[in-house]
């Protein structure tokens, strides 16, 4: 898969052509604990950069998932809705949350790369 970029809210995004794939980071799943519920956006919905796009719930609490970039939803990942535990097992691979049609590629470029994100996590433990 192509290069991933990361947000401060612990989402990752990768881009192929004008399609972006968004998910939550392994670090995010470790903070959340066992994931038991996922809600993904419907096809055709417009999302703004840093706007609420999906929901993830662990046994402990509900959290919003934000879209790191703006665009129009192409697809939500049904498989994690049906089996939310998959997010814990493969958060940065098969258990992506949604794909969207990229509006402005520069939003992607402004996100953190892997090295910067790892540093950010190390400096902001929770």
């Amino acid at each position, binding site marked *: 898969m192509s290069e991933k970029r990361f947000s401060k809210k612990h989402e990752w995004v990768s881009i192929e052509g004008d399609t972006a794939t968004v998910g939550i980071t392994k670090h995010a799943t470790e903070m959340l*604990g*066992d994931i*038991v*519920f996922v809600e993904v956006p419907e096809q055709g919905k417009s999302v703004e950069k840093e706007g609420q796009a999906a*929901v993830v*719930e*662990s*046994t*402990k*609490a*509900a959290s919003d998932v934000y879209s790191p970039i703006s665009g129009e939803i192409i697809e939500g990942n049904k498989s994690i*809705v049906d089996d*939310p535990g998959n997010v814990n097992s493969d958060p940065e691979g098969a258990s992506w949350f949604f794909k969207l049609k990229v509006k402005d590629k520069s939003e992607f470029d402004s996100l953190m790369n892997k090295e910067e994100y790892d540093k950010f996590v190390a400096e902001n433990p929770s």
Partner: protein
Amino acid sequence: MEVQKTALYNYHKNLGAKFVSFAGYEMPIQYKDGIVKEHISTRTYAGFFDVSHMGQFFLEGDETLAVALEKIIPADLQSLKLNHSKYSFLLNNEGGIIDDLIITKTPKGFCIILNAACKDNDVKQISQILDTKHKYFLDNNLSLIALQGPKAVEILEKLIPGVAKLKFMTGDYFKFDDENLYITRSGYTGEDGFEISIPNLKVEKLMKFLNENKVHPVGLGARDTLRLEAGLCLYGHDLNEKINPIEANLKWAIAKRRREEGGFNGWEKIKDLITNGSEKKRVGILPEGRIIARENTKVFSETGDEIGLITSGTFGPSVNAPVAMGYVNKDFAEVGTKIQLEVRGKKHGGKVSELPFFKKSYVK
């Protein structure tokens, strides 16, 4: 106020516990395994819980002690047999629940296990109804360990022979390492098991034995999912000073003699509610699908009228579905009644369910 720690704090830390501030204590919410695994291993094997933050309150006195306590506790304490325990509560003058508790008859009087967040106020409330000849103290030199699960009895019997003979909601003294431990067959998970009252200085020794027997520690996170599946109330959420035992569907915990004779705080009101019914009632609620209805989720009727509020809600790992409890208007309290739950601004279906969500048979 300074944050308090139990005697096992460092032990939890070394096991990789994540801590949360709870009732003034730094308590483990989960360990490395996570809430779901901790929950399942308690249901299928056994788990232990450090519940030393709870108050172990001892009362000593003659037969007038039971009479005095009956003013604030609606259990039949005068005929409670030695080493027998009852689930009950402290009541205020309006019949509201100040705390829920387990009270056990001991040779010298009673022992009451109190919720951590309530214990200081509880002691104040109880002390006001006692006579000067009654003695009382919160024992902070004791830890309290709950060992819960289908293998609990087999495992503890190896260390402390005789505990297997205890029936549910009874207790006794047992020898362990030159100490006399008070052990009850009880718990708050819907599983068979024990609560072990043990001096702080000996508690790590007990932990070592449990570890050797592959019993893993369980945090407050799984304690919450376990008790909710078992239909048990959490004080401060499902119960508070404005809720009375009739609304809370806990009439069974008021002894028959006490219901008839009264003589406890709020009896007039409770008697009226027993006869005429309460406006709202605590019920189990099963949301449809996987939607989790957490505390403070509004409950609506099928026709859209607001009829209640969720007081506890999570995903039940053993039920493998979301589970909740809350209070609804009496007209909607019947099992099977279809309701709606407002989650993130959208209404989702659900129904009133029987409690508990997860059934287990206790050893009687």
